């Protein structure tokens, strides 16, 4: 059997997915990035500074926690990779720390970002404060309302939060507006994309910064079980950055099952879903050829999920490729299943997960789990930001 390549090729493709479908107005910036990113992020002094920040600022390595009561409940072994314990409460900071160091070395002085739930916005505003850079975060007007605490955090951190009024006023529209900003500010600005989406080299670059997750899982699992290789790794997928990071160092080890969990919303057979791989088709959005939720005419349709962080009609090209080649398996869990799973983890382990991460937990109900299996779940974020949703759902 021919060995399948899961790394990006020199044109920015994973199989048939990816590329840089940019208008000429973005060419200079993207061209500079793709020519220089590998050389910069492999510089010894870059690696040294990044590792130091990961350790002392982000708080890495994040623990790999054996969830004994949850394991007992499901009759299997379950480890949680505690990305929720990172500074700012999610895996998002791994990427923004990496990209801000890159932006500095490119001589940029102004940072822009898009955000949905506000986690990436907060993580970007945080590193901009750390490095004294000007920061503008684009956020859909609807999300500004839904995620008020994160908006306040970004403002306190010194970022300007632009409330985006176009389209449906959510993550897709925020991304459109950030891209327009980059077109208008081609000289001094770096765009910190928050997921493994967008034009090459962003999907590869973000995956590399997030790959610290699986690098640590390998070492931690070896210490705890005597093997680097679990039976399976489970992670939620919106754009797909935490899953890309959790899968990264296992991509070429076919004995490890990789499970991506999409936001089913009210069900993948309804209109109210964000399960792009399960209901979408190939197309071009945000400068990438990937799987999209769209109508027959190629207009992008509005996704729906209880979690603002997974509410995106596209997905990173790496995941489209892993789906197509069947290297990873993608399933969806519904809002209802997700809420139950969040409460279960809270009551069994005393950990309140982010709504996004609870999608991965809900998958445990759908998978055939054996007693001797070793399951790793990437707990990508903390539930602090979701307390209002939880309180409304459970009527405490």
């Amino acid at each position, binding site marked *: 059997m021919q060995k399948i390549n899961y790394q990006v090729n020199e*044109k920015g493709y994973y199989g048939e997915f990816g*590329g*840089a*479908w*940019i*208008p*000429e*107005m973005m*060419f*200079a910036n993207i061209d500079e990035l793709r020519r220089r990113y590998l050389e910069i992020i492999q510089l010894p002094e870059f690696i040294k500074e990044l590792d130091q920040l990961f350790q002392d600022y982000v708080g890495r390595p994040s623990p790999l926690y054996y969830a004994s009561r949850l394991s007992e409940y499901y009759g299997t072994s379950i480890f949680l990779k505690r990305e929720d314990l990172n500074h700012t409460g999610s895996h998002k900071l791994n990427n923004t720390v990496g990209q801000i160091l890159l932006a500095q070395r490119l001589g940029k002085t102004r940072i822009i970002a898009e955000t949905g739930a506000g986690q990436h916005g907060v993580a970007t505003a945080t590193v901009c404060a750390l490095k004294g850079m000007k920061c503008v975060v684009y956020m859909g007007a609807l999300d500004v309302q839904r995620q008020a605490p994160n908006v306040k955090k970004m403002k306190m951190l010194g970022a300007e939060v632009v409330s985006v009024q*176009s*389209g449906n006023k959510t993550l*897709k529209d925020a991304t*459109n507006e950030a*891209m*327009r900003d980059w*077109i*208008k*500010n*081609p*000289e001094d600005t770096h765009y910190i994309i928050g997921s493994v989406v967008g034009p090459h080299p962003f999907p590869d670059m973000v995956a590399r910064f997030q790959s610290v997750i699986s690098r640590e899982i390998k070492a931690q699992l070896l210490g705890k079980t005597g093997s680097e290789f679990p039976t399976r790794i489970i992670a939620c997928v919106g754009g797909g950055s935490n899953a890309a990071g959790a899968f990264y160092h296992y991509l070429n080890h076919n004995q490890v099952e990789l499970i991506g969990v999409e936001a089913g919303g009210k069900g993948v057979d309804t209109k109210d879903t964000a399960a792009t791989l399960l209901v979408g088709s190939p*197309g*071009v*959005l*945000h*400068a990438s050829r990937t799987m*999209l939720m*769209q109508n*027959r*005419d*190629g*207009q*992008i349709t509005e996704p729906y999920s209880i979690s603002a962080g997974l509410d995106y009609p596209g997905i990173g090209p790496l995941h489209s490729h892993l789906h197509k080649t069947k290297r990873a398996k993608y399933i969806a869990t519904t809002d209802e299943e997700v809420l139950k799973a969040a409460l279960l983890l809270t009551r069994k382990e005393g950990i309140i997960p982010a709504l996004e991460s609870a999608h991965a937990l809900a998958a445990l109900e759908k998978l055939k789990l054996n007693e001797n299996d070793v399951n790793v779940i990437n707990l990508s974020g903390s539930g602090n930001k979701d307390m209002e949703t939880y309180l409304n759902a459970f009527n405490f």
Partner: protein
Amino acid sequence: MKNRINHLFETKKNNILSVYFTAGFPNLNDTVEIIQQLEKNGVDLIEIGMPFSDPTADGPTIQHSSEVALRNGMSLNLLFQQVKEIRKFVHIPLILMGYFNPVMQYGLEKFCATCKETGIDGVILPDLPLEEYEEHFKKFFLMNHLHNILLITPQTPDDRIRKIDDASEGFIYAVSSSSTTGEGKKVEDFNREYFERIQRMKPKNPVLIGFGISDRETFLNACNFANGAILGSAFIKAVQQKKILKVAIRDFVKSIIPPQ
């Protein structure tokens, strides 16, 4: 038959006026009348906008017209139906402009063939990069005598302008400044150095300047540096403000073209 774009530039060298409008705006069935009125009032070239849900290179005006057009029910299928007979009465060059995804879903090969049948002379797809075009799609354009119009910007280095000029037929679309559509810099801030750089390079293709051209002053200023200019957002605002399309178009074109 010779491509009408080439014919235009052979017969007219200066002050070429190209107008962009979004198909399906303000009303779904305005397409044919807008094209006819633009030609009648002396416009040289028309760019018919194919609306897309996520127009990342466009400013607020075209975002809005695209949204309205889609809400009105515009699609590529419908647009081709509307302009099916257009060549019976319209003779100036027609270009389709829009984003790649709707064209991809329609099928690029079929799209190019339908353009030829309809009498479309060129296509502008800003998010179809030169490299993808040359590798995968050029053959379909050539087969159907359809020109792919490419963009350059103030950030485009000389060697890339050369490459784009070599790959172009018809004309080069020079984006006036770092901006999305309708938000260009004011006339006094015009990037003189950039336009002079293009002139010095003596491209083999004619050049039209677009983005931020909004009135006679900016139009004529652009014409000093190129063969002509493109107006889009300003035209959309004009048809939006006046109730009678015919009057709006007549007044708009009159406000741009200098009196003879």
